[in-house]
């Protein structure tokens, strides 16, 4: 108790002091940062698009990566309990940001004060718009979870809708799905005839959940469950599965960079966000450095630059027109963005708040169902 109130007090103090420190601009800044992200191609895109340019412009500053975003919530809790927060900036998905913010582990901020305006003068809060889903969240990109399929294993009739995943007669073979209820339950209900907008209402009831599980039961024997974003690309490359869900950027890399016989099935793709949170209670000098970095890393040009390396859409509206070509392949990136109109004909709106409330319960039920 004592520790917690001490931390709370120091947080408040830090915020006040750091605000002042920042006003004097580059006063007292730490010269190293620990950035937490997901590893892989995504982290590389961040490294190239804004970390390297930032370090080049600020000599003597170093950035260390920690690939712990997967367990960011648990680790931040432990760090907070141990009174030793070693991270400076943490990349998390929206639902984790909401949880961290609710628990007071992430710092609340004012977008218009912390982030730069768009080049045309639009305020940051407007430029990011609805994507700032929590008072602590600094969005970077929009990605989607969607399906890819082996073009050489589906015959002459490639799948066109997400419900083809549940059609084991037309498309025999294994499918890979993520080993968690999120997205799978929604897709199951959509394919069981529930309208998109009613999915969460149905899923709130016991019968609705049973209905989703019953639908998943029909393909349970044909599913390989994945837990890392790299699993589905590996399984598709192996030909172990005929189709599988994963993040669209992974599929882009598989198709365009690795040249595998795989195609996208964008139907009912589920958008999600990825962005930064600043851990609460950072010492003044570290906070000043992080704020300086975040201001740079989330400006309009930097977010557009990130799309040169990975097919995720920038979170700023003003970045969209600046999205150009892939840094190495030289292909236009716009048609590979999940937000491209041709890809976004049917998208499913993921409900963060709903899942924040039901996640623990459904996680348990899902695991029990898996074990049956």
């Amino acid at each position: 108790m004592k520790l917690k109130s001490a931390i709370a007090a120091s947080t408040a103090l830090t915020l006040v002091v750091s605000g002042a420190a920042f006003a004097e601009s580059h006063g007292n800044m730490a010269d190293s940062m620990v950035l937490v992200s997901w590893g892989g191609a995504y982290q590389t895109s961040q490294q190239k698009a804004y970390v390297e340019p930032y370090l080049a412009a600020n000599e003597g500053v170093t950035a260390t990566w920690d690939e712990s975003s997967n367990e960011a919530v648990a680790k931040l809790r432990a760090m907070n309990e141990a009174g030793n927060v070693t991270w400076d900036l943490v990349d998390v998905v929206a639902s984790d940001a909401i949880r961290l913010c609710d628990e007071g582990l992430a710092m609340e901020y004012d977008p218009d004060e912390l982030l730069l305006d768009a080049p045309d003068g639009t305020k940051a809060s407007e430029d990011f718009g609805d994507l700032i889903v929590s008072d602590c969240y600094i969005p970077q990109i929009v990605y989607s979870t969607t399906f890819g399929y082996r073009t050489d294993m589906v015959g002459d009739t490639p799948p066109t809708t997400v419900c083809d995943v549940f059609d084991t007669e037309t498309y025999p073979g294994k499918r890979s799905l993520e080993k968690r209820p999120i997205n799978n339950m929604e897709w199951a209900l959509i394919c069981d005839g529930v309208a998109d907008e009613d999915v969460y209402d149905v899923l709130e009831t016991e019968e609705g959940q049973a209905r989703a599980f019953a639908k998943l039961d029909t393909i349970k024997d044909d599913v390989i469950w994945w837990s890392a974003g790299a699993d589905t690309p590996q399984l598709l490359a192996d030909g172990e599965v005929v189709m599988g869900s994963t993040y669209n950027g992974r599929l882009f890399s598989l198709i365009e960079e690795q040249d595998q016989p795989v195609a996208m099935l964008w139907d009912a793709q589920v958008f999600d966000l990825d962005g930064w949170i600043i851990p609460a209670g950072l010492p003044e000098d570290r906070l000043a450095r992080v704020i300086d970095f975040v201001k740079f890393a989330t400006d309009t040009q930097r977010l557009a630059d990130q799309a040169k390396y990975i097919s995720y859409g920038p979170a700023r509206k003003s970045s969209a027109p600046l999205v150009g070509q892939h840094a190495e392949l030289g292909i236009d990136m716009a048609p590979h963005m999940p937000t491209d109109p041709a890809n976004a004909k049917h998208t499913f709106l993921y409900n963060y708040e709903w899942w924040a409330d039901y996640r623990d319960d459904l996680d348990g039920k899902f695991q029990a169902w898996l074990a049956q």
Partner: protein
Amino acid sequence: MNDVTLTHPGQKPIWFAAGVVGLAGAFAGLFVGAANGNGLAGLLIGAVAMAVIAAVAVLLGRKLELPLRLAIAAAAVVLGYLLGGIPGLIIGAAFGAFFGWFIYWIGWGRYRAKLVPYLTPAQVFWHYGFRVLCGCIFFFLVAPIVVVMPLSFNAEDFFTFTPEMLALDPAGYSLKHYRDFFTNSDWQQALMNSVKIAPLATLLSVTFGTLAAIGLSSEHVPFRRAMMAVLISPMIVPLIISAAGMYFFYSRIGLQGTYFGVVLAHAALGIPFVIITVTATLVGFDRSLTRAAANMGADPVRTFFKVQMPLILPGVISGALFAFITSFDEVVVVLFVGSAGQKTLPWQMFIGLREQISPTILAVATILVALSIALLTTLELLRRRSERLRGMSPG
């Protein structure tokens, strides 16, 4: 080895030869069938085909042994080539040669040739069954490690045996994952960290472990067993428990996320290995030697370095090797106690496996396996040297 025939073989009944060879054929057919998508069909075809061939071979008699064995091998080569191309051909040749030999080995009771005549059938069965069982266990242990090695030379970025690789086409192989390991800054940083952490942790483990072992071996120390149990507990307590405990403890005293924190944690994990190996060596150490040295006026420190240390050195070194490998391979504790600045090789591999399945991990694994084999070979050579020395020493 020795070609003495202890029991003269004789022809076995057809049902016996057909039965045993059929069983072996079923086993082989299961693998071939599974590789071609239908395990059960492979099992049945393998069993029937091999049983029939064995029966025919026994009926035709020993005169036709050589031509028949060649025919079986040729048929297996063709079948292997049809089912699996060039690699299938190689596997088929091995299968054919084996079954040709096996049919006659069973059919004419040659398996009894090297055994004494009075063994019962059950004893003969156990004699070979035991060897097959040991071979299977060995295969089970080693296969996953061996499979990794060719994959690390994959020209693609996946854990997949590509058709080019299976056809032994040089284009399917590449050293690019090794190049990635040696040029990628993340991997090099991780290697540096491992190389910085492991030797110091080993040094600490060896120093404290040897001292503790010597202390615990002298008879006048009270509560020796209890102390021993406490000291080797890091080896017994589940690693995750130690790791979580260390995390909170080190955080409070400011060691979490520091280089020395990780070194200390790894030293604690390495100490039990040193204690166990050194204690074992001390059992064979003649205490009257230290008394003799003291009698001649040497102080305890001098006695230790001049008399005791050289004699227990093999134990100390093997303990040190275990401590080194423990630190070098450890991932759980460093994930807790270390911070991003102390990312070690296993940590980097763990991240790589979870976030991006890249054969660079396999390249690193191959290098680590080679390193471990080198270390363990050293260990074995030292052990032999120690045995030789002990054999020569009086008493």
